[in-house]
């Protein structure tokens, strides 16, 4: 019963917005703004057609592969660099500079150097690397002095120190970085496919635009929204699991926060 109420609270505004959209679109009767029911019809046809396997699967596959590469490289490098004041003294100006470049601007560069049809994965991996890398560095740097001394006093091995102390200390920041990286990966997936790709959701979006197939265009946009929501929810679940030890993340604290 409470679950039902929670779900109701969470979705009521969304449902009303869709309803208003439906009514307005029908009243306006404009080809550029098809009503949600028309979009849903187009979505039903497109999403469950072979197009899904031809475009959504490879596109999302590249996005996940790029994101995973960024996560692994970013966390590993971040933990090592974060514990080296010397390395960061040399690298931090360069990092700050690269971070301040909006990631989509890299798309033309990668298109020119790697090729329009094969630059998607490297573009996503490169763009998504920076938030997770810099946040991990920040987290690894902030291990408190008492833990450093405790680790030294117990003569922990280097692996124990990095994996057992530095990484868990940095984990809250790592997840903050991963969330940013995920949204960048999704943006770069679409943008890199818009510019030129043999397949992908972005490719189909452009195709629909060229054909003036507005309901199809909207259907792909809605799919991107759903994908973004889905991956973000999965990441949040992973975070909650990995940070279960934190007071704020405990099951008890959670029921306190959401209960009533």
């Amino acid at each position, binding site marked *: 019963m409470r679950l039902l109420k929670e779900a109701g609270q969470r979705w009521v505004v969304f449902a009303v917005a869709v309803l208003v959209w439906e009514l307005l679109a029908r009243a306006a009767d404009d080809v550029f703004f098809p009503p949600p029911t028309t979009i849903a019809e187009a979505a039903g046809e497109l999403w469950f057609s072979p197009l899904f396997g031809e475009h959504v699967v490879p596109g999302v596959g590249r996005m996940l592969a790029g994101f995973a590469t960024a996560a692994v490289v970013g966390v590993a490098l971040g933990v090592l660099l974060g514990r080296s004041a010397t390395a960061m003294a040399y690298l931090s100006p360069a990092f700050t500079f690269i971070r301040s470049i909006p990631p989509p601007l890299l798309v033309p560069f990668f298109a020119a150097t790697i090729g329009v049809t094969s630059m998607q994965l490297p573009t996503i991996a490169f763009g998504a690397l920076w938030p997770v890398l810099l946040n991990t560095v920040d987290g690894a740097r902030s291990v408190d002095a008492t833990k450093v001394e405790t680790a*030294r006093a117990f003569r922990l091995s280097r692996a124990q120190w990095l994996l057992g102390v530095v990484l868990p200390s940095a984990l809250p920041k790592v997840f903050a970085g991963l969330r940013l990286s995920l949204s960048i990966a999704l943006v770069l997936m679409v943008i890199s496919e818009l510019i030129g790709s043999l397949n992908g959701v972005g490719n189909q979006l452009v195709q629909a635009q060229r054909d003036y197939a507005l309901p199809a265009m909207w259907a792909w946009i809605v799919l991107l929204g759903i994908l973004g929501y889905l991956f973000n929810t999965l990441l949040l679940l992973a975070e909650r699991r990995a940070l279960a030890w934190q007071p704020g993340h405990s099951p008890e604290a959670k029921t306190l926060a959401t209960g009533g």
Partner: protein
Amino acid sequence: MTDLSKAGPMLEVTDLGHTYQGKDGAHDAIDALGFSVGAGELVCVVGPSGCGKSTLLRTIAGLVRPSRGAVSLHGSPVDGVPADLAVVFQDYSRSLFPWLSVQRNVEFPLRGLARAERASRAAEALASVGLDKAGRKYPWQLSGGMQQRVAIARALAYRPALLLMDEPFASVDAQTRFELEDLLLRVRREQDTTVLLVTHDIDESVYLGDRVLVLSKSPATVVAELTVDLGAERDQITTRASEEFVELRARVAGLLQGVPQQRSVPVEH
């Protein structure tokens, strides 16, 4: 009192000095410090706040390389952290790993051992500090005093020859401090651990120690070494009320205030 074996004292500190190089010049934390600790002894180091007690402890632990002098453990010079030494820090909340359960915290430094051995050592250590039922909890679910018990259990499970304690009971309330002091006395009787404990609390140093080393203001040096003849069995109420205790704490207090030792002892006319 001190039971020095044929091999000499377990810990020997000779002419130890350390100077920190800060932005506003050099600062001598400790200077010309010398003393020794025999196996099985519990020695308390008491000194005014900020006198360099922590520097002394970190130098002995091998965490800080001293500018002058030498520390030797079992007759060999300390260069880096020795293998059979454990430290209990004042700040238990930072010293424990919040992402590990209590049991895992205690096991963590024992990685070289077989899994079963680690688990049994941790269980034994937790039982000896009265936390045998808290193994699966996380540190933040325990009170401050219980967290410091976990830190003590972790040090005991490591089975060090020498246990160093840096103001271990300074961050808990008075009632808990008494409990932890008695816990330390009991554990050290049971396990025959050698302990060097640094504190700024005069009463605590006399209550716990077999000997009390009184340090001067910074740069710290040993002003006096007092033997505490209160016996092995001590009690928070009767021991603290005993004549020897009261007299000793007055002497330590006098020494800390820079009063010459003779004047703090009643003189017969």
